[in-house]
């Protein structure tokens, strides 16, 4: 169990602390400040720190530290899940980018939340929708206050992610399929690793307690449904996890995804696809070091998606040696310049059409160094976004909404593929 939760700012001062057990004290914050925050170690050290038999498990939001202290042998995954849930709850109340001052201005609210989400060191009710019902001091608009009778039923009911009696004039569902491609290509051009992690996010504005059925072009399902001749290729999903509203027993039995959705935004599922990844960009680099003072880099980038689409926010970082003094850059698209603080040529292309090819050629002049040290050649890093494209090939086949009243639902689907770690070694 958790003995204390504290929130510290960048200087290590306690902003909020709630003590659940007697075995630790606020003084512990000092040792955390000295050993973790002041040591500037927080980014490279593991998120679990043991100081004199007291374990500190911490995570960060902006520049604040959310720290859980414990003296017992806890389940660390549980503690982190709690801390993240806590931050999620605070985001719901104070806005996505809540910061120190909004924390301080709302600290009575935060105390309320601290007490409601945890009692004597054990997580209690952490579902935002239910908390909103009876803690409504912050930015959350106070909803019509339900009768106390009904309220406690909600607080502890089996479906704690949705309350009854929600009403919308227009029933709408927004579905976002967000994918991030991770790619690592060796200097010899072999794909070392290619993988897509995706998530399906929903924003539901639905009346009542609707039952939803959701379908992707999952290979296993498609093979089962289509017989013989007209077989559409499905995507082989390696593994997936779901929001807790999804009936897992049903999924295991026949891979249908059915659920009663929470109101508003939530993450329905996450999945992972390893095989047959459509890589949106192909990069062909060529680096030549000529003696100690010259180096030339040529890079060809080919967009591998349909002409109808285009990529946005493309940033390609081509690393150069630290002792670069002059650079001559020629490029066909966008803007490229040498940014010494990043030790890289940064090439930005706002809009990259599908099937297009771009070239970048760089001639570098290097300063002679007293002690020549081999250039470590970090990888070329690419960032991009391709709207309406999925690298895994996943697409939404259907979303059916059933409700007693049988209303009509508008559904909107968006796809975005982003670069996770998209790297090419040179």
């Amino acid at each position, binding site marked *: 169990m958790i003995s204390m939760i504290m929130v510290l700012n960048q200087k290590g001062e306690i902003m909020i602390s709630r003590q659940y057990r007697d075995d630790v004290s606020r003084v512990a914050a000092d040792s955390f400040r000295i050993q973790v925050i002041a040591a500037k170690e927080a980014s490279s050290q593991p998120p679990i720190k043991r100081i004199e038999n007291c*374990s500190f498990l911490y995570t960060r939001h902006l520049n604040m530290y959310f720290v859980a202290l414990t003296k017992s042998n806890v389940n660390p995954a549980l503690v982190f899940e709690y801390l993240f849930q806590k931050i999620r709850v605070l985001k719901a109340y104070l806005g996505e980018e809540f910061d120190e001052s909004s924390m301080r201005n709302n600290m009575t609210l935060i105390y309320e939340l601290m007490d409601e989400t945890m009692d004597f060191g054990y997580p209690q009710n952490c579902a935002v929708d239910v908390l909103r019902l009876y803690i409504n001091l912050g930015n959350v608009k106070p909803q019509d206050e339900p009768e106390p009778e009904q309220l406690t039923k909600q607080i502890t009911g089996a479906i704690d992610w949705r309350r009854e009696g929600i009403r919308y004039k227009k029933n709408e569902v927004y579905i976002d399929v967000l994918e991030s491609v991770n790619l690592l290509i060796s200097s010899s051009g072999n794909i070392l690793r290619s993988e897509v992690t995706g998530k399906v996010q929903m924003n539901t504005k639905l009346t009542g307690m609707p039952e939803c059925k959701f379908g992707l072009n999952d290979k296993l399902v498609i093979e089962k449904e289509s017989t013989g001749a007209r077989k559409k290729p499905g995507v082989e999903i390696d593994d997936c*996890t779901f929001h807790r509203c999804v009936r897992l027993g049903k999924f295991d039995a026949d891979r249908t995804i059915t659920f009663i959705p929470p109101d508003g935004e939530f993450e329905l599922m996450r999945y992972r696809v390893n095989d047959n990844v459509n890589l949106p960009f192909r990069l062909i680099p060529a680096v030549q070091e000529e003696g100690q003072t010259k180096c030339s880099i040529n890079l060809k980038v080919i967009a591998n998606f349909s002409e109808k689409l285009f990529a946005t926010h493309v940033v390609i970082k081509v690393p150069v040696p630290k002792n670069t003094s002059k650079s001559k850059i020629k490029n066909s698209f966008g803007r490229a310049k040498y940014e010494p603080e990043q030790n890289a040529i940064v090439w930005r292309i706002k809009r990259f059409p599908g099937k297009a090819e771009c070239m970048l050629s760089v001639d570098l002049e290097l300063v002679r160094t007293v002690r020549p040290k081999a250039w470590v050649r970090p990888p070329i890093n690419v960032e991009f976004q391709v709207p309406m494209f999925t690298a895994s090939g996943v697409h939404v086949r259907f979303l059916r909404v059933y409700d007693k009243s049988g209303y009509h639902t508008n559904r909107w689907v968006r796809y975005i593929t982003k670069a996770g*770690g998209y790297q090419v070694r040179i």
Partner: protein
Amino acid sequence: MASTYPNTNMPVPGGPPPGTNGIPPPPGQPGQPRDESYFTESRKGEVNELRQLLRTFGTEKDRNRKRDIMKKVIAYMTLGIDVSRLFTEMMLAIETRDLVVKKMVYLFLCNYAETHPDLAQMCTNTLVKDCGNEDPMVRGLALRALCSLRLPQMIEYTSEPLRKSLQDGHAYVRKTGVMGILKMYHLNKEEFDKASFNDILYDMLRDPDSSVVTNCILVLNEIMADSGGMALNRAVMLHLLNRIHEFSEFGILSVLDLVPRYIPANDEEGFQIMNLLDPVLRTANAGAVVATIRAFLSIADAVGKRPGDDRDPDSPTVDDLKRQVVVRIKAPLVTLIASSSNELSYVLLKYADQLIDLCPGIFDDEYRQFYVRFSDPTHIKHSKVRILAKLANPQTAPDIVSELSELIATVDDTMGRIAVRSMASIAIHDSGGEGAVESIARRLVEMLDLQGIPHVSSEAAVSLASLVRRHPNITTVISAPLPRALKYITEPSGKAALIFLLGECGDSIVEAPYVLEKVIDSYENITDTGVKTALLGATVALFFKRPPEVQLMLGRLLKKTTDDVSSQDLHDRALFYYRLLRSSPDPTLAKAIDDDSELRAALMNEFNTLCTIYRCRAENFIDEENLVKFVKMPPEHPLPRDGNVAPIVDPGVNNLADQFGNASVTDVPAPAAVISAPAYSAEVDLLGFGDDLAPSGPPPLSDTNAEAVVVSALQMRTTPTSTDAVESSLGTFHIFTMASGELPTEFKFFLYCQEEGGGYFLIQAVAQKAPPSLALTIKPHGGDNDRNKRREMIDQLIELIKTSLGE
């Protein structure tokens, strides 16, 4: 100017003169921005001002202004300013209908009760009264505040409201009450024993609300910590498992944590529990997933066959089962690692590491998942690289080694070191297949010459030293550059390793004695004891290889080292060698093999706790009073061959059975109803105090007088399309499904049906997809004992099943 501020806040003499911004920040909170609404400078005067404000509280009409006053008090409290002087005023504000104000007063109360017990006692009456408020929210809050006062003398006031709360009509109050019991337990154990809440808590495990049950489990576990956690019997365990889908995200963990302490009554029950928990692996909560893994492993431990066990030779062994478990959980674990936040990834990587130790080889094909990403934080990179080394097998080793060599030259020194070490460990464990040891040794030798990156060359030397100990035959590969490398490797550990290597490879390096001689002659310049010790060891080793050349310098070295007083160890060691050599030059070196299998087993027992993260046992870092040793409950019902099979109701199965209920013909025999009805309905004695009430589920699989009929490899023309289709088709023949599933290569069905005479048949059907074939195991139970007749029935059954499966 200064008059606008209360004079208590005048700058100290000698401080900066009072000016527009000359107010020094108060001690204890440097750099507090001045524009923040509640955190402006604290002054004693302000506390007095607050008192004035509070006095107007009673007459204040505006709800928001009332709240603002309260917020100010709480803000001061958070800053660590003592506002306990306002206690009396705050107590007057407790009589309010505004919940927000009430909560703030309670918070204030809990914070200062310990330091002002007598004042706190004054307000207990109000709290006790609030415990009887009509609003359940207020009742809950008051109860929580009352129990959080942490005043031993208050016990007498708390136990009554507590008892009442446990019977409250609202789950919120009950759940708070249950936690209150725990608080009381920690406050005063004797009083607590007198109150005898334990039985009530056990009864409340049947509470219709899952959050109350969750708290009961948590509280009981803590109260009973001395006897190894909450007492657990089969009825309780099954009751909880059957309701597991009702529990909240965090509540489910409390149930899952109980499973490892439960020993399943028999093998089937163990497997049923695993089937039931399987869906949990798909939840997004990493804590629940890992807890499920732990539960699976412990069931495998209990169910699997051990050597020397006289069970059925076909039943799987513990190790086999554990492997199967790890295979099952591999994909979910990898997904979580790839998609979670850094903190969770770190924790999960540690778990994966431990699972790899448990079942080497299983994660091998996922090795690309453990490639380092440029954006990973350092500690995750380190964990990944350590794991990568363990995933090497002859197929993957070349890729892994080349990936590791990419990491050697990164900016992060530690990373480079770990990469070198990981590479060496592949060679040391010989997991890379034929030729791998040699090629890794060559790579390491190349690294010796990487003068630009001193830490890598030093680490390479250390790795080579360990490699030579394991594979002495590689000395020829590595010997050439050693004398050269000794000149530019400066790090003590690397230098010591090189000197050791020179001793070991002495027969293939011609100049070895002369290189060492130079080092010996400059002995006075060596500061590091490790290097000195290595030098001593290497020279002795070389002496046995080439005595005439080394004898003299060994003598000089022994003289120097025995005179050296900087290290006791070195001195003793030198004397030891000296005496050993004097008696007879034939030392036998004892080799100690590092064996940590015991530690690993202990860690596995504590899987899913901080132990895994720190890689040491709980005793080593948890204070005695916090140390809980959960013990397994003895299987007080040995139930070996004739007991009833556990009536676990899988939600999935439940659904299917419901569908049957709608579709089935009217003269269906009883069994279908048995499955669809919840095994423990609310009226039934849930805790199993009357065992005779145990429901009649499908009959037990193990029956002594019945023999199983096994039919294997029946040729099939087609494979079934889906489990649903087969089940509904079987349903028309009155053959019912207990469980079914589709695997990549096969379908599995567990079926049962009843014959006219009342006997049962239990059927396990496995349909291979390619080539289409069918294997059946049919066990008759009860009913007619006439063999021929039974055989006839079974033949009929086989035909029916074949038809249903798509013939």
